[in-house]
């Protein structure tokens, strides 16, 4: 098919023109506005807003909780995908359909139900009191405990702390790894496994050296998608985290706080500082996006070429 022939269809100018117009008005110009607003600060002001200890702690928290949640999801997601593709058991269809619930359930609903479940009277929370600072595990990791006093302290609380954030980020990230790995595993050709088996490979060796390498690109893509989702998550986190500045405060909360903070010296709100922090977060997520695109391109190379 030549380019000339394709132009036989009508509406190219209109459809492309409208697409570009809508994309610019709704997405590109507003996003550019954020960076322009941030750049109206002088360099030292920008640096001051962005490298504020509370802000730095917030980036670190967001970064670490998202990566931990994504890694946990990568591990469990691989198992669930394997089970859904390879095994038959009653209720499999239902389980398969429920995987997508985190995408369909409003994040605020997820937030309140997790906060309730892990609260001191919730179904799960009442059995997790040992993680609180006065419980035995929590005490062990606190400043007075053996581990906390000799190595480093750890906030092990099941509600309010970083652990709670990891749990909700795991919830919102569940579909990504499973849905990335599932189709690749389903399409995986049995001939390769047979070849490995006939060459004397054990089941584990087949998995480790034949199946896993084929899954790797899709697996990593799923992990990156789950991580990116966690990085931006707001709705569910604010309900489970207690939002102590410098400890359990995520960047989006900080941005909203800056938006609502009135600067009496200048008589305006601190829009610029909010924009500065937002542009740091945006840059972080754009880098992740580029990474995901590269991963997807890389994984396309691995697709079996039919020749």
């Amino acid at each position, binding site marked *: 098919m030549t380019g000339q022939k394709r132009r036989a269809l009508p509406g190219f100018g209109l459809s492309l023109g409208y697409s570009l117009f809508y994309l610019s008005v709704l997405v590109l110009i507003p996003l550019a506005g954020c960076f*322009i607003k941030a750049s109206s600060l002088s360099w030292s002001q920008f640096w001051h807003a962005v490298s504020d200890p509370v802000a730095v702690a917030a980036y670190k928290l967001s970064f670490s909780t998202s990566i931990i949640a994504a890694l946990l999801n990568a591990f469990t997601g691989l198992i669930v995908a394997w089970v859904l593709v390879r095994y038959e058991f009653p209720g499999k269809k239902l389980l398969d359909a429920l995987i997508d*619930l985190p995408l369909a359930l409003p994040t605020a609903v997820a937030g309140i*139900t997790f906060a309730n479940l892990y609260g001191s009277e919730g179904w799960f929370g009442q059995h997790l009191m040992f993680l609180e600072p006065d419980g035995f595990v929590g005490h062990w990791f606190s400043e007075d405990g053996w581990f906390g006093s000799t190595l480093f302290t750890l906030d092990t609380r099941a509600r309010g702390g970083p652990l709670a954030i990891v749990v909700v980020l795991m919830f919102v990230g569940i579909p990504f790894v499973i849905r990335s790995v599932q189709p690749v595993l389903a399409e995986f050709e049995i001939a390769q496994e047979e070849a490995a088996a006939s060459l004397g490979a054990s089941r584990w060796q087949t998995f480790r050296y034949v199946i896993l390498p084929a899954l790797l690109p899709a697996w990593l893509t799923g992990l990156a998608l789950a991580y990116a989702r966690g990085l931006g998550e707001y709705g569910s986190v604010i309900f489970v985290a207690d939002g102590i500045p410098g400890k359990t405060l995520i960047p*989006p909360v900080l941005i909203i706080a800056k938006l609502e903070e009135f600067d009496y010296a200048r008589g305006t709100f601190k*829009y610029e500082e909010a924009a500065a922090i937002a542009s740091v977060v945006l840059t972080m997520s754009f880098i992740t996006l580029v990474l995901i695109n590269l991963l997807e391109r890389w994984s396309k190379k691995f697709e079996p070429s039919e020749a």
Partner: protein
Amino acid sequence: MEFNKSVREDPWYLRVPLILFSVLFIGIMVIGPMVNVFAQGLELGLGVAFAAMAHPHALHALRLTLTAAVIAIVLNVTFGIAVAWAIARFRFRGKAVLTSLIDLPFSVSPVIAGLIFVLLFGAYGFIGPLELSPVAQRIGNTIILGFVGLVLAWLNSEFNLLSFAFRPRWARLILVLGFAGLGCIQPVTDLDRIQIVFAVPGIVLATAFVTFPFVARELIPVMEAIGPEEEEAARTLGASGWQMFWYVTLPNMKWGLLYGVLLCNARAIGEFGAVNVVSGKLAGRTDTLPIYIEKLYQGFGAVQTASAFAISSLLCCLALLTLVFKTYLEWKNRQYLQEQVKKEAS
């Protein structure tokens, strides 16, 4: 066949624990929280739950949520169809860039999606609330109506609507200038100030932003898979552009389109972060359902909490319904594409 089975068959001591692990994981992480929503919603009985849903503020929030979702869907479906048509049917420079720009809103944190509109239209933003002087009102009207005229002129050139009275060139001129002139003389709106942030337009903008990619990214692969042959055939047989779209393109992509609308709708109804920033949370005025749930949950007392969960169970039912439809549409779409492949083969 026997051989195939034995190679893939894992021993029971591997199979059973892995299945149990998966069921337990989904049970604890997904089913437990979902059941908890319903359990907490009914904690104080059905009466409290129904009273919470029938509260005027809840009904208003429901209406606002649906309004924003519907407008966002209409906007994004229009964009989705346009961009899918351009990308799947034509070659042009910058196609790859455009394709990756469509996904951009997915990587933007919802709060930042709200923030960018506050930065534009907030009281101290670049543009601020739109204050329209009489002159600006006239200019705006001229542009809007001129645009309407342009669209009509395009429709006319596609269908030759006015061919009974005017030649195409005259019809175009009359439509564009006529409508623009009308806007110049007679203001169609008497708005002199359009509040965007902390009002409904801001909520619509934020919702449209976060749901921006859904329809487009479902439609592009569907249209690429179907190919341009049937449309070209329709054109060759003398169909106008509109006829081709209505009788060939739209029926061909309907399952993909519905799938995109479904995902778009689920996200639009549940959006919290972006709407939270732009809505201003005025009770009974700019509360959407998720924000209303947040307010109830932060309030004191068992009744408030139970009400929050009662309304949440409504949204949870909606999410489950979405999953049912999603499974159905995925099945339907697969079936449809298989039929297409068969048709091409025969």
